[in-house]
């Protein structure tokens, strides 16, 4: 590492932030693009499981709320891709790499949604897990990314509340509705525990070294468990992990998540990966005329 890069690392590790116009080491720029691109991809792909339920939402109010949430997430993808574009990767290329499977998106968006219970669990717990990562990005060393995260976090907090409200309506409903929530929780717990990634120490995580992330994977997972396990249990739901407990020193213990499954899923072999990428590819093609019309203006 040359001296200029060393100074850069010391600066960001000391909490310093940089702008698009500052000198950035090549490796930092590459890591940033990869990270930000995956985040943008996840927002764009993350709406697909929920989109499937807009027409099947149980009430008009729920339909409108879900539509607004989908609109928000697509908006987040727009903001995030814009930041990545500034770092040198064209949006068209990012979309092409997404649909060809070259770039990745988060594990939780590769799974099917079976019932309205899944929609509630996604909106509540998947968004809760995501907001923990996103709040940590408010301190990201790349300032333009940190700034858009303010708006994103603000909108995500409504999503979590919307999800929790869906869940509360179901657990206070019929026994059958309660069961739909429990079954969805059983399905989602594994992917949720994998969501923050394997527990490599923060110091060994290149994303942490460059302070793109401000916390380690395990730290994020512990924060998720701390915040949400009590909220799950108070509703009378069961967390499908017999080993889950909080130790005397305040650390959550749990069954080792299935890291092979995580790897398999994010490398494009999830149960719904192919369908959803095909769907996305079809829409990119179908809407080409809009982009052509705008650019010709």
């Amino acid at each position, binding site marked *: 590492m040359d001296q200029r890069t060393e100074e850069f690392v010391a600066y960001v590790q000391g909490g310093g932030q940089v702008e698009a116009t500052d000198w950035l080491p090549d490796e930092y720029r590459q890591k940033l693009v990869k990270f930000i691109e995956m985040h943008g991809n996840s927002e764009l792909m993350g709406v697909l499981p929920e989109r499937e339920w807009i027409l099947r939402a149980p009430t008009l109010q729920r339909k409108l709320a879900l539509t607004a949430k989908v609109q928000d997430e697509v*908006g987040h993808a727009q903001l995030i891709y814009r930041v990545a574009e*500034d770092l040198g990767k064209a949006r068209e290329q990012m979309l092409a790499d997404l649909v060809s499977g070259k770039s990745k998106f988060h594990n939780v968006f590769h799974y099917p949604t079976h019932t309205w219970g899944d929609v509630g669990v996604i909106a509540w717990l998947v968004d809760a897990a995501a907001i923990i990562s996103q709040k940590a990005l408010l301190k990201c060393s790349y300032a333009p990314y940190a700034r858009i995260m303010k708006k994103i976090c603000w909108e995500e907090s409504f999503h979590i509340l919307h999800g929790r409200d869906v869940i509360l309506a179901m657990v206070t409903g019929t026994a059958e509705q309660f069961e739909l929530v429990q079954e969805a929780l059983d399905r989602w717990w594994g992917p949720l525990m994998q969501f923050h990634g394997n527990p490599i120490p923060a110091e060994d995580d290149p994303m942490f070294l460059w302070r793109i992330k401000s916390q380690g994977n395990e730290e994020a997972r512990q924060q998720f468990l701390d915040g949400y396990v009590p909220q799950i249990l108070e509703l009378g739901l069961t967390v499908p992990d017999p080993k889950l407990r909080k130790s005397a020193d305040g650390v959550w213990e749990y069954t080792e998540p299935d890291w092979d499954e995580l790897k398999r899923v994010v490398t494009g072999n999830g149960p719904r990966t192919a369908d959803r990428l095909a769907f996305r590819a079809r829409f990119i093609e179908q809407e080409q005329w809009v982009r052509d019309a*705008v*650019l010709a203006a």
Partner: protein
Amino acid sequence: MIWEVFRQDRKGQPFEHAGSVRAPDADFAEAWAREQYGRRGESVALWLVPRDAVHVVGDWADEFALKYRRVDGYSIKARLKEARERAGTAGPR
């Protein structure tokens, strides 16, 4: 063409840089910015500025060590301690 977006939370508040949009002209820039930075009523006004029109000033030379014009230019701790010792007012109070 890139347009920098500055948004205002409430009337009287400063405009704060929020992000940017890529658009071929001001009309499209306004459409995107309204959608991305205003659709939930989170802004009362937006400024859209072509990135090329922003004149950036970012280097601040300080050849003459001009810190004496600021509070952080004064470290009085050591001198104050010495003065108190001379005056015999040092120690717990």
